[in-house]
C-alpha cells in the first residue's frame, strides 16, 4: 500500500512514518503542504493519504476537495488539531474517510488506519 503523509511539520511526519513502518507499511511518501501534496498525489496516486488541516500554501480541507474531484477511491484520513464538531463535519462533507485529532498515541493512529481500511473493505464487500 502506498501512503502519502501530508503535514507541514517534519516532526509529525517522522512520528507518523515511524508508526506506519511499525505496522509494516514501507511505501511512504511525504509532502509539506497542500500544493506539494497535490503534485505528489497526481504523480504517485497513493492508496491512502494522511492529511493535516492547517498548512501554508494550501490547507488540508482544500486539498481533500481537490483530490475528491478526481479520485473517489483513495483513502483520506484527516490528522489535525481541529477538533470542533463543525470542522469534523466539514471534513466528512469534503470526502474524508476518517478523522483523527492530535495529539494521539501510536495505538490510536494504528487503530484509525485499521478502521479506515476496514471501512473500505466493508464497502467493497457490500
Amino acid at each position, binding site marked *: 500500500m502506498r501512503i502519502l503523509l501530508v503535514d507541514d511539520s517534519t516532526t509529525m511526519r517522522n512520528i507518523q512514518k515511524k508508526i506506519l513502518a511499525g505496522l509494516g507499511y514501507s511505501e511512504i511518501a511525504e509532502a509539506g503542504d497542500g500544493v506539494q501534496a497535490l503534485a505528489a498525489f497526481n504523480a504517485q496516486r497513493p492508496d491512502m493519504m494522511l492529511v493535516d488541516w*492547517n498548512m*501554508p500554501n494550501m490547507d488540508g480541507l482544500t486539498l481533500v476537495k481537490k483530490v475528491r474531484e478526481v479520485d473517489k477511491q483513495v483513502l483520506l484520513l484527516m490528522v489535525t488539531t481541529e477538533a*470542533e464538531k463543525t470542522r469534523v463535519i466539514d471534513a466528512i462533507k469534503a470526502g474524508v474517510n476518517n478523522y483523527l485529532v492530535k*495529539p494521539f498515541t501510536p495505538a490510536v493512529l494504528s487503530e484509525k488506519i485499521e478502521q479506515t481500511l476496514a471501512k473500505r473493505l466493508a464497502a467493497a464487500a457490500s
Partner: protein
Amino acid sequence: MRAQHVNPFIDSVKLVFETMLGTQVAIAKPRIKTDDQPSYDVTGIIALSGEAVGSVAVSFPMDTAIKCVEAFSGMPVEEPDDNFTDAIGELANMIAGNAKKDLENLKVNISVPTVIVGQGHRLGRHQLGPWIVLECTSPHGPFNLEMCVVEVAAAVAGGA
C-alpha cells in the same frame, strides 16, 4: 481575557504533554504578565483569529526545550536547527488547537506557528488585552504558556 478562557489551555497543555511526551505537567495559578518580563529562550507562537482574536505562546528555557523536543520526536537534539524549531511549533500548534475547541462555542482559527529562538527575548505584545501566564513545571524543566484571548463581540461592545 475572561477567566473561563484559561481552563481550556490548562487542560490542553496537560493533554499534549501526557500524550506526546509521556509526562505530567504541574501548572501554577494564572497571573497577568507585565511588560518588563522577558520570555524564555525558545518560544512557539500561534495567532488566533475569528470570533476571538489574540495569541498563544509556549516559551521554554533552552535546556527544557531540548529535552521536550527529544521526548516528542524521539530523536536527539544536537543543535537548535529547523527540526528543533519545527517540533516546538508543532507543540504550540497542538496546545492552541486543542484549547480552541473548548472556547465556549467561539469559532476561532489558528495560524501556522512561528518560533523564536534567542536568550531572554521579549515578545512584542499587542494591546488587545492582558496577557495571562501559566507557569508550568515538567520533568524536563519549567516552561511558560502565555496567552491573550479576546472575544471580538465583547471588545466591540466595550468600545475596544
